[in-house]
């Protein structure tokens, strides 16, 4: 395969989104966040264990004609704080965004505390994102406990 063939893959998207610099371990979380596992509509390419100068290995997601909402991008940031979200129009990158770790996360993540009211009463979870030794962790609005794995 020539170098040109490899770039052809990227250029497959005329309009859409490329999410680059995803840590390999976070790829499937991000697929879930974006609901790509059940997506029968958009054309997409998912690559993983790719070489990366900065990260060693990385994963990449390319989706045609889909533009993730701000809320989705915030959630991606929790798992892949160094990801780049590139918007493609007419085969060209028109916007390159660094993701931003949100201050608050609602729903989606479960509280790790089995005695938390959110695990018993059908309450939507809500967390404050705080840094613990540089790593984002989630502090539950209800039980006030910290969820470190999500």
């Amino acid at each position, binding site marked *: 395969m020539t170098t040109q063939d490899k770039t052809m893959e990227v250029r497959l998207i005329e309009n859409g989104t490329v999410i680059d610099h995803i840590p390999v371990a976070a790829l499937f979380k991000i697929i879930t966040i974006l609901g790509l596992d059940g997506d029968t509509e958009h054309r997409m390419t998912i690559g993983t264990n790719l070489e990366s100068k900065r990260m060693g290995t990385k994963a990449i997601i390319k989706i045609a004609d889909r533009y993730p909402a701000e809320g989705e991008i915030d959630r991606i940031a929790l798992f892949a704080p160094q990801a780049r979200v590139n918007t493609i129009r007419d085969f060209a990158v028109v916007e390159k965004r660094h993701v931003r770790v949100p201050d608050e996360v609602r729903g989606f993540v479960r509280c790790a*505390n089995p*005695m*938390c*009211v*959110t695990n*018993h*009463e*059908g*309450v939507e979870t809500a967390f404050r994102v705080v840094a613990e030794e540089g790593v984002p962790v989630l502090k*539950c*609005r*209800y*039980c*006030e*406990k*910290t969820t470190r794995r999500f």
Partner: protein
Amino acid sequence: MKSLISIGDLTREEIVRLMELAAEFEKNPEQRLLQGRVIASLFFEPSTRTRLSFESAINRLGARVIGFSDATNTSVSKGESLHDTISVISNYCDMIVMRHSLEGAARYASEVASVPVVNAGDGANQHPSQTLLDLYSIKKTQGTLENLHVMMVGDLKYGRTVHSLLEALSHFNARFTFVSPEELRLPEEYRRYLSDRGLVFEEFEELDGRMEDVDILYMTRIQKERFNDPMEYERVKNAYVLRASMLEGTRDNMRVLHPLPRVGEIATDVDASPKAYYFEQTRNGVYARMAAICYLLGVKV
């Protein structure tokens, strides 16, 4: 509308104000400031002492109490959600005092309720009125909350009263000494909390011989169920017992506090000491709760 869910919700100024109000109620306990009001006391989980303290406070303020002392004969046992129970009961009263076994239940209830909610304990999480009575006891016996040396002994890992009290005292430049077995040491989260605020603390595993410059000795119960190994519990239990002889050489102003119930961690020979304060401490609970209720309802005292 304001609820009292977590001690962290209160500013330093609010704590100071609540102490003033509690002192006011102690001077003059029969103030029927809440005549005609109804307060719901919802104990989804039984706690006789806390419930009676709240209900005494409510009665002294002239309000009436409705509610239940455990959830077995209520719609909760039929499977009604907390959301629905709270939505309905908010329509019957001016305030809800609630205790629940689930952590975060009170915060959730305060989002659902159309009246203020007072957390009377949500599982292992928070019990802010206990902290207010601890603070009021400290204020009364020391004359101030500022710059005190507080020694906390026993279960510092799971003891919610310990965590809430140190959080509250962090507003007042306290110095801490923590005494506990390794397995019940103060969690990293709280050690970091104190360090981040520049507060000084030391940690020890032995109780003996460290009390000469302590102002408040805060004892807690070590619970058997916290230990996997029953032998370990037996060893630890006997290592953290306060005896009257150990109070020799301590400061005159030093007082012994305990959230109660005690089991064996304070020997009964301490009870006769003028430094034993744990029974008076419970009376302060009524004044502290009267203060909190009036403050939240915005009633002028």
